[in-house]
């Protein structure tokens, strides 16, 4: 008997994530790559890599759903849903409601509230500005001439931090330059930047019940969770791979629609 499989592709503004699951919702393979400017090409590559990792050769009977900013660019997807629905579905695979999901993405942040039954109560996306998102940290890393992957360790090791007051990424950049001029330590500045991300999240909504943190920024900068813990009393949890929750959710929705294999 052949296993029933389903796939999910989350084409984000920054990275494209792909997941394949089996009948039981177990992840057989996943892949993440930069989206670049060719969303269709990125989704093709991500999907091929995922199939290869999962050891799946035939794609004939695999139902694939897409999500994310570029969800309509995935030519082989049979359906698409927003990242709001898919992140929620992905988180429900690991945790039960009620919960507040905090997703920190490349260019937008999301707060999604689910009730006891896992049904959505409300959601919010950040406003037009990308303050507090991955784009903010990328911009700041560039200004500080730091590789992105070093940020988490620097923030974690810091024994103090600078205070950055602005909403605006550009103005924050100016503030950072002022801090450098006045001799602030690099790790203190990075920790200040992390705190700025947390402040942007805190002002988006209230936090009720368990907080589930997802997104690429959390996957690569888990110290943000420690910082958020200093502000709220709620339990904070993360799924095993926070970055692929949207793709996983899309795959789980696809699984619901995937035809049952009769052989």
């Amino acid at each position, binding site marked *: 008997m052949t296993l029933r499989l389903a796939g999910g592709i989350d084409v984000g503004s920054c990275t494209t994530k792909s997941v394949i699951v089996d009948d039981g919702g177990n992840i057989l393979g996943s892949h993440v790559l930069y989206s670049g400017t060719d969303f269709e090409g990125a989704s093709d590559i991500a999907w091929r890599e995922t199939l290869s990792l999962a050891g799946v050769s035939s794609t004939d009977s695999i139902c694939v759903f897409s999500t994310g900013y570029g969800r309509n660019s995935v030519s082989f997807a049979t359906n698409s849903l*927003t*990242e*709001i*629905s898919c992140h929620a579905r992905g988180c429900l695979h690991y945790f039960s409601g009620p919960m507040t999901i905090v997703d920190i993405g490349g260019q937008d942040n999301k707060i999604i509230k689910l009730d006891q039954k896992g049904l959505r109560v409300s959601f919010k*996306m950040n*406003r*037009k500005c990308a303050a507090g998102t991955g784009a903010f940290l990328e911009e700041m890393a560039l200004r500080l001439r730091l590789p992105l992957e070093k940020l988490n360790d620097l923030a974690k090791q810091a024994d103090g931090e600078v205070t950055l007051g602005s909403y605006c990424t550009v103005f924050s950049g100016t503030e950072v330059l002022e801090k450098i001029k006045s001799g602030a330590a690099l790790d203190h500045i990075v920790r200040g930047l992390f705190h700025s991300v947390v402040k942007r999240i805190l002002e988006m909504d209230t936090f009720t019940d368990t907080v589930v943190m997802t997104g690429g920024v959390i996957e690569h900068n888990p110290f943000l969770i420690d910082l958020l813990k200093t502000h709220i009393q709620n339990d904070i949890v993360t799924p095993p791979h926070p970055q692929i929750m949207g793709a996983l959710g899309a795959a789980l929705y696809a699984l619901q629609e995937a035809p049952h294999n009769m052989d």
Partner: protein
Amino acid sequence: MSDRQKQLRKPIAATSQMKKLMAAHFLEIDEAKKTGKQKVAWCTSVGPAELLHSMGFLVYYPENHGALLGATRMATDVIPLANAVGYSPDICSYLTADVGAYLKGVTPLTKAYGIQNIPRADILVYNTNQCRDVQDWFSFYAREWDVPIVGIHTHRSIREVQDFNIADLVSQMKSMIPTLEQVSGNRFDIDRLRDVVDLSLQCTKLWRRVLECGATKPAPLTFFDATIHMAPAVILRGKPEAIEYYKLLIAELEDRIKMKEGAVPGERHRLYWDGMPVWGKLRELSDQFYQLRTNVVASTYCNSWIFDAFDPKDPFESMARAYTELFNVRDESFKEWYMDNWIENFSIDGVIFHDAKTCPNNSNNRYSMPQRMAKRLGLPTLVIHGDLNDLRCYSEEQTRTNIEAFVEQLDQKTG
């Protein structure tokens, strides 16, 4: 939207008549400016238009011009010109679009009706019931053209309209009369005012009936239709042609109701829109809701031209009451009561609040109303961030995703 869906979409036939009325209105004003045979008063959208008509003015509404600049997507190109001379990007983008267009010497009236310039005002008459910006807007032109400006200063954020509010506003209106007589060259005539108020009353009753058609399931019109078909209620109130137009439109909508013809075929969800339209994105938003089989069936904005209080027996008092009972003028508790009623009567499944960057007076999400409403009515609410005219404040993709996600949430609720 696919070509097939576009073909399926049934346009409102009365639209062609409305276009003729609009053309006639603007051409009449243009002609009057060329010949000088009649004076032109500029009036804010809920200003004392009845008084102006009664004194023989042709009435021009710059807010309508602002909306035309938005709908034709000229606004975002001309707003920076107003910004450059000191009108902030954070103030009313009707104002900045209109002033910017004036500074550039362009108007959407040229393409639509062959009219080269907006009509120079002989007098500017405002009412601050909408916001303070209208006074500053009109003051620009008063300085520019050295023409008289008069205005009504409405009491704001009020719960109930009190007798002292009315007495004050009546007194303010009456104090305008000498200036209006001087500019128009006509004597004020109370009977003429009664006639105009009566025409406005008939118009507003019919406009209410148009909007109430949206309570039917499926609704025969959408919010986006209503933003277009409200034009006669806005710029022709007090004139008989507006009344005739709404009789025509109502007959068509009632036919649709009889035939159970929804404006959105297969209507699944019914939404309420609070706040201003995004004029430059009406088509895109309308198409998106159509594809999602979701109809925006009611709105605060289109209701703003329902003036139940008009009464020819007491023209001044009833005008004051009509202009002040406006949603925009009232406090949060009234606004909530008002919206709750429409939400119930129109079987609303969810509410969208448009937070218009440059219109704080008509962005009702800013004092936690959506959160209170969600709790009180158990109704999903969504805030979208944009603007009435300035598309620099609008993110197309983020808005699309928010709306799509909201409809997914409603789908989840209905199973």
